[in-house]
């Protein structure tokens, strides 16, 4: 079983967000970067569990410059066998998906796992695009994945509930909570990660179809209006007359 896991770089979840260059670039100054949590906690760890059960290999793939190497080493420390880094700025979802699918198309992966979204761009786009480019089925926002030979049973979010799907590998799956439990790398993993292969591959020629023109931050909230805890009639009145939400 050959498993490919998409790994992207994201600012730590406690980061205070700000922008530079006339609000066109994310301000990376003093920002701690992590592996995108959905990629790490769910896609990577489930990939490792499936490998441990069925044999095979787990390769990670990342589109980004050398500044991505620390988070790639983290994924290797958690247990991936090797890593591929496509040496290019990840400009938009289409570009990233094209790089991943161009790399993956001749490699015979049985399973391509990604997080359900990144916590910086939240677009949920790359998985579906990779699936289309490779002509594979795509299951998004999956919370459970079991394999029986080459048949996969997956639970995923659907409108109004959970859908249980069945299909034959290969396929692309985006992973969400429930899929696996976070793994903390141990010292042996961290040592081993230093010598595991991290292959840098040059990008194929592909356009970005979208570009960010400007970032902005939400307006500050006004002061909170405090209500006497004894007087909930007052709160209901405000929610009705002032906020107009009930």
């Amino acid at each position, binding site marked *: 079983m050959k498993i490919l896991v998409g790994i992207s770089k994201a600012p730590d979840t406690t980061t205070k967000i700000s922008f530079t260059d006339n609000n066109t670039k994310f301000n990376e100054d003093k920002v701690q970067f992590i592996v995108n949590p959905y990629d790490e906690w769910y896609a990577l760890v489930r990939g490792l569990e499936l490998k441990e059960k069925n044999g095979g290999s787990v390769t990670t793939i990342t589109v980004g410059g050398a500044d991505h190497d620390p988070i790639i080493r983290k994924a290797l420390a958690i247990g991936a066998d090797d890593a591929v880094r496509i040496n290019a700025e990840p400009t938009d979802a289409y570009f990233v998906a094209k790089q991943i699918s161009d790399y993956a198309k001749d490699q015979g992966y049985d399973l391509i796992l990604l997080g359900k979204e990144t916590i910086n761009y*939240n677009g949920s786009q790359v998985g579906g695009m990779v699936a*289309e480019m490779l002509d594979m089925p795509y*299951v998004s926002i999956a919370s459970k994945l079991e394999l029986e030979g080459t048949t996969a049973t997956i639970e*995923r979010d659907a409108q109004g509930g959970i*859908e249980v799907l069945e*299909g034959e590998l290969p396929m692309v799956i985006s992973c969400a909570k429930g899929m696996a439990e976070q793994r903390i790398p141990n010292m042996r993993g961290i040592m081993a990660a230093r010598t595991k292969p991290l292959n840098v591959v040059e990008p194929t020629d592909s356009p970005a*179809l979208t570009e960010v023109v400007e*970032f902005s931050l939400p307006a500050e909230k006004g002061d909170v209006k405090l209500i006497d805890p004894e007087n909930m009639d007052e709160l*209901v009145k405000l929610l009705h007359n002032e906020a107009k939400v009930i």
Partner: protein
Amino acid sequence: MSVLVFADARGGEITKAAPEAIYYGKQIADKISSTVTVLTYGDVSNDQLEKLGRYGASKVLINKAIKEDNDQSLSALVAEAVKAEGAKVIVFSFDPTGKILAPRLSAKIGAGLVAGATALPEMDGDSMTVSNNVFSGKAFAKYRIKTDVKILSLLPNSIQVSESDGSATVEEFSPSLPEGKLKVKEMRTLGGEGIPLPEAELVVSAGRGLKGPENWAIVEELAGALGAATACSRPVSDMDWRPHHEHVGQTGIAIRPNLYIAAGISGAIQHLAGVNGSKTIVVINTDSEAPFFKAADYGVVGDAFEVLPRLTEAVKKFKASN
């Protein structure tokens, strides 16, 4: 040349998010002197389809051969409709089905996609920019779509819909399509009785301050009185006090209801990221220093065990007299 809007259907019913996407498509169509064609599938009654005219659809295409949301058949269907209609703008809802079909379509036809749009696009000739939420709701980005054909998926509950008295013509649309490779074995509705959280307009949420799962009755009673969905913070779902699908926050689901009431949640930045799109936020906490109060519109410094039942009574009294 029309604006094509994909409307998801479940069990013979057009989903709740679809009218908003159709209305959104209509606003775009008006700006480019075009009309809205809606595409759907399954066993939806003609009556329901004609009524989509009220939100701005001129024409509805329905494919009756596809019964389930099979991603490859459905994305091929959308691509065929784009071709047949000569669509320049394609609109989806940013919901579970839209999150599958919009990126597939983008890759299939090489058209740029902005996912989770929160407002109408700005258009100037062939140029289109549109905003969405980034950094898990902590910031916004305005994107330019660089391709001729443009794909947008609309974050539900983003724009106000108004109805007119239009009626749409209905046509069957049956191009030849590849067979889907996924089979739906089962559909499990969550909780059964409750309102699905992502679609809820009112949400009552609670955190560790409730001390244990056995204390959730007071949360459910308030939700029941309001007609609200229930939600929870990450620690609560991690400890299995509440099911995972109720977890709102950066690594759970992001919601933007009209009213979000949070009891016993301190308001860590990761939790705020999932709820700060809410129109009105009420925070109930014993600790007046809880960071959540800074993000709240209304605050109650008090014990949730006393305040929630009192609020439930006040809501019941209000409902009885209105």
